[in-house]
């Protein structure tokens, strides 16, 4: 122990004596360590957020948004195509549903909004945990309020697109200008609108509740009997991937589905949840930049370390006499070698310390990225310290042979 302490203190004494030679190298290592640590921290922070987002792939229902590029009247996905997707991608759910917001006057003669949702089996499973075959059935799930309205008005509804909903106030019409889908009891409305369609609601067949008071859940397949392209409202095809599938594979699956849909229906454009996608792309760019900066910093650091190696060898040449004296006085050559390695490690350690602490302080305060928390990472610190100290150690280790080949007698006799 005393021997080790003596070697450490000898090396420290030498560094103090030659501090002017070491100070520039120390500052250069500090700068290199700062850049490496900063870029690693940014990289790992993004990587960590990336992983969180990959996990969110499972929690999220991805929405593939379909938008018509022309006046195509075909649906963005047919029922047969949906079945094909379900067969091809068994690890995913496709809770497809078509939503028609409609308006009607309620008991209090107020215009209220209701939703007719044509739902797939997966949608029913996801939303109300129903395992029944629904999408091809004749069943209907109804909210209480709209059910009451329909009980009063018969079981056949007519949907009137592009028709404002209305109500009668004091025997005159009050038109809801904002409500462009209306449902009016068929008995009260003439059949003159060409794009209107009827929906048969056999509400007596089920007493199951829909999702809310004003929702009607209808079998998906029925929508294809009277589907109408809706330019204003983009259709969303939701996809949910099984949580056992790794995040990256899940993302690939989504992309494959998009590609498949486009090959079937080229009249539509399909995009995945754009905000998330843009974020991933943006962060990929930042991550790549962090990697490039790291590589540049490592190259610079290697140059600095080569400089340090040169300095150590220069000092060795100047100190041959002193080392020979120490050998004459009983120092073992390996002790002298360890001492010189330590001597080069001190300024490197100081430089790395300054660089890492600088990054630790500076980064969270001055670097801010959207949705990313830049937090110090132990792994970043480890790699920075290892990345800086290991080459210093290896380069100063080259002194070993020189010290072992040194002839103290020749050196001392020369004086």
């Amino acid at each position: 122990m005393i021997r080790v302490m003596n070697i450490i203190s000898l090396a420290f004494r030498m560094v103090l004596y030659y501090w002017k030679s070491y100070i520039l190298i120390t500052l250069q290592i500090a700068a290199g360590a700062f850049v490496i640590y900063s870029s690693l921290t940014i990289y790992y922070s993004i990587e960590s957020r990336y992983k969180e987002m990959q996990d969110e792939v499972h929690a999220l229902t991805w929405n593939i948004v379909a938008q018509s590029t022309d006046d195509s009247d075909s649906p963005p996905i047919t029922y047969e195509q949906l079945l094909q997707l379900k067969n091809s991608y068994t690890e995913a759910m496709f809770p497809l549903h078509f939503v028609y917001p409609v308006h009607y006057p309620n008991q209090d003669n107020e215009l209220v909004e209701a939703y007719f949702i044509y739902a797939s089996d997966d949608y029913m499973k996801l939303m109300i945990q129903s395992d029944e075959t629904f999408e091809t059935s004749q069943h209907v799930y109804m909210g209480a309020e709209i059910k009451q309205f329909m009980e009063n008005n018969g079981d056949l509804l007519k949907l009137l697109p592009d028709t404002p909903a209305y109500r009668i106030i004091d025997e005159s019409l009050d038109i809801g200008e904002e409500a462009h889908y209306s449902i009016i009891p068929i008995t009260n409305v003439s059949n003159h609108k060409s794009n209107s369609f009827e929906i048969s609601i056999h509400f007596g067949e089920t007493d199951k509740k829909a999702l809310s008071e004003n929702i009607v859940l209808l079998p998906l397949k029925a929508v294809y009997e009277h589907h109408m392209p809706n330019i204003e409202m983009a259709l969303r095809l939701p996809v949910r991937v099984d949580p056992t599938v790794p995040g990256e594979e899940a993302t690939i699956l989504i992309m494959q589905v998009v590609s498949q849909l486009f090959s079937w229906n080229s009249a539509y454009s399909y995009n995945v949840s754009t905000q998330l996608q843009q974020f991933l792309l943006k962060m990929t760019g930042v991550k790549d930049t962090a990697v490039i900066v790291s590589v540049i910093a490592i190259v610079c650091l290697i140059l600095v370390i080569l400089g340090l190696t040169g300095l150590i060898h220069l000092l060795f040449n100047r100190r041959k006499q002193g080392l020979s004296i120490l050998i004459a006085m009983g120092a073992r050559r390996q002790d002298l070698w360890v001492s010189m390695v330590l001597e080069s490690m001190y300024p490197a350690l100081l430089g790395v310390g300054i660089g890492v602490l600088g990054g630790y302080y500076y980064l969270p305060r001055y670097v801010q990225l959207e949705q990313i928390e830049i937090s110090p990472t132990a792994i970043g610190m480890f790699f920075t310290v290892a990345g800086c100290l290991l080459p210093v150690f290896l380069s100063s280790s080259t002194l070993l042979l020189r010290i072992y080949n040194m002839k103290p007698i020749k050196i001392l006799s020369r004086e």
Partner: protein
Amino acid sequence: MLKIVDGSKSYNHNDKIINVLQPFNLLIEKGEFVAIRGKSGSGKSTLLHILGCMDQLTTGDYYFNDNKLSTNKDNTLAKFRGKHFGFVFQAYHLIKEFTALQNVEAPMAYMHTPRKLRRERALALLSQVGLEDKVNFYPKQLSGGQQQRVAIARALANQPDVIFADEPTGNLDRDNGNKIISLLCELHRQGTTLVMVTHDGDLGKIADRSIHLVDGHIKS
């Protein structure tokens, strides 16, 4: 104490063998003051280095208190030197990066002496050689005589059995040289074995015994 049996030393220089020390036997008793004299190039420094375990014999055996040293390895010899021998060189050979105090402490550091004890002993030795007021001076701040006194204090650091002095007054004026010789004689009187290389005939006279070297031949 120090015994060389059938020793010789030769070098190979440009495929030519140069015999620096012809076959010889040598015995130095404990407490003796031996002067090694001879002309320049006669091999006296080589003999001193062999006795100080800084160089090795080409043939023959070297014993210290009947322990054979000539077959020992570098590390063992280093440890042995540190423990039993002290060196004083003509050119002082102080470590320029160390203060006088640190120079005296250095040999103790390699003998695992605790820091506190090291410091106390180094201060006492510097005081003994009359440099108690120069402990924090670097070698370049000291005169030649002062540097040599630091070197003597350093040689005494590990309480050696033998001190080897290689022309210790060679770089000093007569006055400083006399002071150094007085110091070495005082150490000898205290019981330390002293082996000194010199070409000064007067110094040879104050030694207990002189060894003359002529072209590598020892003539006691």
